[in-house]
């Protein structure tokens, strides 16, 4: 029971961290970004590569992984996303999916298609209420809550954050003040991508690292974003943990059905709360 809850929170935390970027990109640019799965995957792979460079020092390797996707995110934003502004959303889906395909194939080329397992970087376990929980998972949960608070502070107290909040609500009005909102949205895109890479880094030891890992998680993130409300940071936070729990609880009773249940929940939510996109 306890470990199910813990697992649910862990998954929820990771889903949250990855989904932020997706939700923001959707809210600011009205673009469904399939390439988000790519930066997530690249984060995991750069982690693997850096681990061998840094002799297994996980934190250093993670930092490198998260920073390494910045140029990739910038390139995607500059040459693909920016051209999709104002376009029909279908083209955004297809184009970003194409980027994902290209990237995944590149990854297969460089690293091969064989899954790479990673071991728990912490290795220790804590005893919580009588159950042995891997410390690593507790760290993930704590980290995701930290990210949430950092983002809250960012959007509330920094000028950049306020511009983004205003821009999310009324982009034209911000522009008419003389602020080049698109630049700030690009920044947000890169931040969201770094968070996705962080998600990839965190999740890598729990699952295995393989070229198609992005595909699996992407769908779940879409569910999180759709259920939580596009562009809503708090909604994403809540729905990520809620769906994480759905996965954990379902997984307890019927393992493989965990992900499917998330989609069933998503469908039910969308029946009662359809979204205009």
């Amino acid at each position, binding site marked *: 029971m306890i470990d199910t809850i813990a697992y649910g929170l862990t998954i929820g935390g990771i889903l949250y961290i990855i989904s932020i970027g997706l939700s923001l990109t959707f809210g600011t640019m009205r673009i469904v970004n399939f390439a988000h799965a790519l930066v997530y995957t690249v984060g995991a792979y750069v982690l693997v590569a850096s681990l061998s460079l840094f002799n297994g020092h996980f934190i250093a390797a993670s930092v490198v992984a998260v920073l390494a996707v910045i140029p990739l995110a910038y390139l995607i934003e500059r040459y693909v996303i920016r051209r999709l502004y104002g376009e029909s959303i279908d083209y955004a889906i297809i184009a970003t999916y194409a980027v994902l395909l290209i990237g995944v194939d590149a990854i297969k080329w460089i690293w091969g298609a064989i899954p790479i397992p990673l071991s728990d970087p912490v290795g220790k376990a804590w005893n919580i209420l009588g159950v042995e929980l891997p410390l690593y998972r507790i760290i993930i949960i704590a980290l995701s809550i930290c990210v949430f608070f950092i983002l809250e502070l960012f959007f509330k107290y920094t000028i950049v954050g306020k511009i983004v909040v205003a821009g999310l609500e009324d982009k034209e009005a911000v522009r008419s003040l003389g602020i080049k909102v698109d630049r700030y949205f690009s920044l947000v895109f890169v931040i969201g991508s770094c968070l996705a890479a962080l998600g990839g880094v965190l999740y890598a030891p729990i699952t295995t690292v393989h070229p198609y890992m992005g595909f699996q998680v992407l769908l779940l993130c879409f569910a999180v974003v759709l259920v939580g409300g596009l562009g809503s940071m708090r909604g994403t936070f809540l729905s990520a943990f809620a769906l994480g729990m759905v996965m954990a609880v379902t997984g307890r009773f019927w393992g493989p059905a965990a992900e499917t249940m998330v989609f069933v929940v998503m*469908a039910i939510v969308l029946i009662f709360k359809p979204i205009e996109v």
Partner: protein
Amino acid sequence: MRNNFLEIVRKVDILFIGCAFLLLAPVLTVQRTNDFIIFCIFVLAYNLLYGFMGRLSFGHMLYFGVGAYASALTAEHLSANPFAAIAVALVAGAGTGILLGPITVRTTGACFALINLAFNQVGYFLALIALAKWTGGEDGMAAFFDNIWIFDLGNRYVVFGFSLLCLLLVVYIMKRLTSSSFGILLRTIKENETRAKFLGYNTFRYKLAAFVISTTLSAFAGALSIINYTYVTPSFIDTTRNVEVIFASLIGGSASIYGSLVGGISYMIISNYLPKYIQRWEMFLGVALLLLVFRFRSGLWGYISETVEKYALKGARE
């Protein structure tokens, strides 16, 4: 003069299409061409939603897979009559459409794409794991069909002829649909659904109808592919294969029946023959998709037909 010629061609185009495929058969082998034909049916079904109604589904393999599994299961448990299998597949496809339609059709854009994707994923899960007892799970299952009347389905020429007839039938249906008031209304919904509503149409009903037709025809293609392969595996319902039909629609140019056929054949040629020459052909596919989105919006067929029109206009002026 030229216009009359084009009109005549349009009337008998079914004949032309049939001949085109008959010509392809000896070039590419009968079995390959059969694959092409079945895929073209799927693209036509898909395009009803994407090209004519403007809704991108990212999960249409579900309906294809439903048809495939339905026909295989029919062969296994009900009757080895291929027509029975097709009938069941059609019902299954329509049923899935009626079941999922009311949910998905209310959404647009990204929501629509993603909901279909999610349902596809659920279907994949069902086929791979949940119903593995019946579907054979990862290994899939075989499906053997009896010979009925003149349809000796062990003979690949017969299967080819049968598929071709089915394709021509579907083309005919699509032609009638898209040139009817139903088709015009679909296009109005694509351009501006609010306007259609203002004109008094219950757009939901029409969208649902189009959706169900699309899923049914997709299931039809799925059933035909099982008759062709006599074997079904979860790859027939695999979510990552959705990009195939999307790519075909884009290459062909979406709101056009000829475009669907051109797109279907083009994609099949690319996926069948390119991997022999280019190892990283998925990367190539991605790059080609980007080019299509950014440069060639109306696809190959669109590009060709626009160029032809330009020449026709020039000719008329001179």
